[in-house]
């Protein structure tokens, strides 16, 4: 419908409108003074920053609306620095806007495409070079070169091998063994069933063997949450019920989704919630997933009491704790 001929014509660049500062020397002088004031303000701000660095102790606070009790040292140092920079910037821009020539300039673009003959020349050269190398004809060279280049990338990869050990069965193991006592975290005190009221929780770890130290990697697999309910509230099969003791049930605290600590226990609903991605587990049904992205229940730790009446593990975890991985069998 529309073609180029009928289009509105380009009236060309509008005529340059002079600024006040171009026409009125007084305005120009005023602009100069404004720029100078900004630069002076910047210098004053720097003095404020240096003053607060040296003379304001870093434990001095004062009250500011909105911000509350604020550290004077940090605030004045920061504000001094900020305004020192800001005023330089504003001054420079004002100078450029008001006093530097503001006539718009037109520059021509050059077409990126080279003239046809140059281009043909170039293409011919590339072709000639390509055929001179014989890549096209000597396919043996091409293939072996490809092989050599491809395989050479393996060396750096192989060199990275010693970054860490092989996982082996490491992901399946925790420190929990038959008879390991459950101790409080922190505090490392063993727990008796009667220590926990109904509705109580306790964050526990396996008791340390003499001379053993607990690393963060251990906690990352061993952390367990102990919860006491009324035994009648459980909806468990016989085996899982036998893993509890007198209403006390133990789950791995490491989320079966991405490994955050799932410790957010709602006593009324008996739900465990992971604050990272909101997987919700039903404690009464062996931590069955009832909401959120996790696909597996939290592993349950079988517990009982030892001769001294302290809570202990009946057996190690029967499945890997924490997030899934390729070799995981269930």
């Amino acid at each position, binding site marked *: *419908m529309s073609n180029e001929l*009928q*289009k*509105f*014509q*380009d*009236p060309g*660049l*509008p005529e340059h409108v002079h600024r006040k500062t171009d026409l009125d020397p007084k305005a120009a002088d005023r602009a100069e003074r404004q720029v100078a004031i900004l630069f002076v303000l910047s210098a004053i701000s720097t003095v404020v920053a240096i003053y607060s660095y040296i003379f304001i102790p*870093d434990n001095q606070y004062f009250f500011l609306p909105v911000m509350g009790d604020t550290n004077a*040292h*940090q605030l004045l140092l920061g*504000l001094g620095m900020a305004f020192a*920079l*800001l005023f*330089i*910037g504003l001054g*420079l*821009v004002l*100078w*450029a806007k008001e006093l*530097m*020539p503001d006539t*718009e*300039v*037109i*520059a021509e*673009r050059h*077409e*990126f495409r080279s003239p046809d003959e140059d281009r043909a020349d170039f293409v011919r050269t590339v072709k000639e070079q390509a055929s001179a190398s014989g890549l096209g004809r000597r396919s043996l060279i091409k293939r072996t070169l490809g092989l050599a280049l491809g395989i050479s990338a393996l060396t750096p990869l192989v060199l990275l*091998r010693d*970054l*860490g050990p*092989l*996982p082996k069965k*490491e992901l399946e193991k925790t420190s929990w063994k038959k008879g390991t006592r459950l101790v409080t975290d922190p505090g490392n005190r063993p727990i008796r069933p009667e220590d926990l009221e109904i509705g109580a929780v306790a964050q526990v770890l396996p008791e340390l063997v003499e001379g053993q130290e607990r690393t*963060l*990697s251990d*906690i*990352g697999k061993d952390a367990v949450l102990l919860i006491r309910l009324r035994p009648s509230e459980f909806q468990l099969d016989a085996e899982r019920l036998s893993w509890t003791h007198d209403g006390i049930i133990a789950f791995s*605290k490491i989320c079966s*989704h*991405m*490994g*955050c600590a*799932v410790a*957010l226990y709602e006593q009324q609903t008996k739900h465990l919630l992971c*604050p*990272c*991605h*909101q997987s919700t587990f039903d404690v009464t049904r062996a931590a069955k997933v009832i909401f*959120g*992205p996790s696909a597996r229940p939290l592993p349950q730790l079988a517990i009982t009491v030892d001769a001294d009446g302290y809570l202990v593990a009946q057996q190690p975890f029967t499945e890997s704790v924490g*997030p*899934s*991985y*390729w*070799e*995981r*069998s269930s």
Partner: protein
Amino acid sequence: MSKVERIGGNVASYVDDRTGAAKWLRKNLTKVFPDHWSFMLGEIVLYSFIILLLSGTFLTFWFDPSQRDVIYQGSYEPLKNIEMSASYASTLHISFDVRGGLLMRQIHHWAALIFMAGMIAHLMRVFFTGAFRKPREANWLIGVGLVTLGIVEGFLGYSLPDDLLSGTGIRIAEAIIQALPVVGSYLAFFAFGGAFPGHVFIPRIFTVHVLLLPGIFLALITVHLMLVWYQKHTQYPGPGRTEKNVVGYPLMPIYMAKAGGFFFIVFGVTALLGAVASINPIWLYGPYNPGQISAGSQPDFYMGWLDGLVRMAPPIETHAFGHTISWNILIPGLIVPGILFTLMALYPFIESWMTGDKSEHHLLERPRNNPNRTAIGAMSLAFILVVLINGGNDIIATNFHLTINQIMWFTRIGVLVIPPLVFVITKRICLSLQRADREKVLHGRETGRLVMLPHGEFIEVHEELTPEQKFTLTQHPQPAALIVPTTDANGVLNPQGFKGRIRARFSQAHVEQIDAPTESEAKALGGGHH
């Protein structure tokens, strides 16, 4: 003045005596740059990168990237005598026992957020105005690379202090690595030097954070800027502005002064944020311990959308033949982001394939004049926004008296429904705006002034647009849809077949436009009046 001129002259001769670059320098010092606020977004990114280098260097003077256990003995009482990693302790040291250290830490973190926010804003500007079109596809690809690396670099920086929040982030990253089929647990053990969290990860990512990635950034940014320089900047359409020229101000002195001034302004604003607003108060988070967690554990915003995706994923895992595939991690953590970033990187090529447009473009398009592209962009933004909301669902729930379950279901459904809806609505809005433009050109601008005609009728006075305005509103090219014949010249079925039909369909959608008014139409109406 004359003194300045004399010194300047001497410097110029001195340089040319030794380089012979007089001609080249003269040309480049008078290089013309168009002026528009949206062209400053990229500069925000460049300057915050420089701020990051400066403040980051300051932080390395005290930061100890080590996971060896230390007992904190610094001046922050609530953590005294607590066992923690050296990297956490040294971050506390920077915050409380190095004067101005906390300020610099906050400047570094705020600059990182401005860096990422600026990149996203710059990317949106380039996308919505079509600045990525030929010949600038390479720069688009570099930009997409920079965004991707920026997310990684930001995440590593967030991880370095080894506080409870960053450790939780690393834990989640480890779970994503571990979820990779076949190689997952091996890669995780290599990266962490054994079981998570181990003792080597922080020192390793420190090197990547301060050396490898900044190096790559520097190289990519240099190429990015050299291409902008060489290809000359794009410009918005308007009178006197054509595909063959660039209208603006010369580099020296005006653009130099403005750009230099803007560097100080960006630095000043970042320092202002660092002075008045607390960011990442790691002393409140406590040292990392895998057995601890805080409510509302969130990543920074540029990772927030990923976290939101992971939260809304359906709980699906495959267990077969003694192996496990965690779709609930792989889909939101790798597959969806992978597809998104690939599509984003390839978009210039996809668009040029759809439209068959192989010509050079230096004039930008107003977003409304390319409704299909604008709608695609708005749709993508809607997607990211919906998942980002889910990434903060717990904070939103407590602040707006909603439930996390409601927000989760709203976004789970919304992520499928809202983006297509936004596509349709945006496209309609663009076409309406085009219609309004057409109306304005043909009938003038509504002034809001009412006039009573002699016979009593009221009419609104319409003011005719200036020729400049008319040109600006009508100059955009309106290409016809690509015709992909189903049969070739010999009547043989087109080998492109199905692919060709899809291409034709896309092309048709892409050229949907309101016809721009022409001068002849305007003449036929007899001026711009009612």
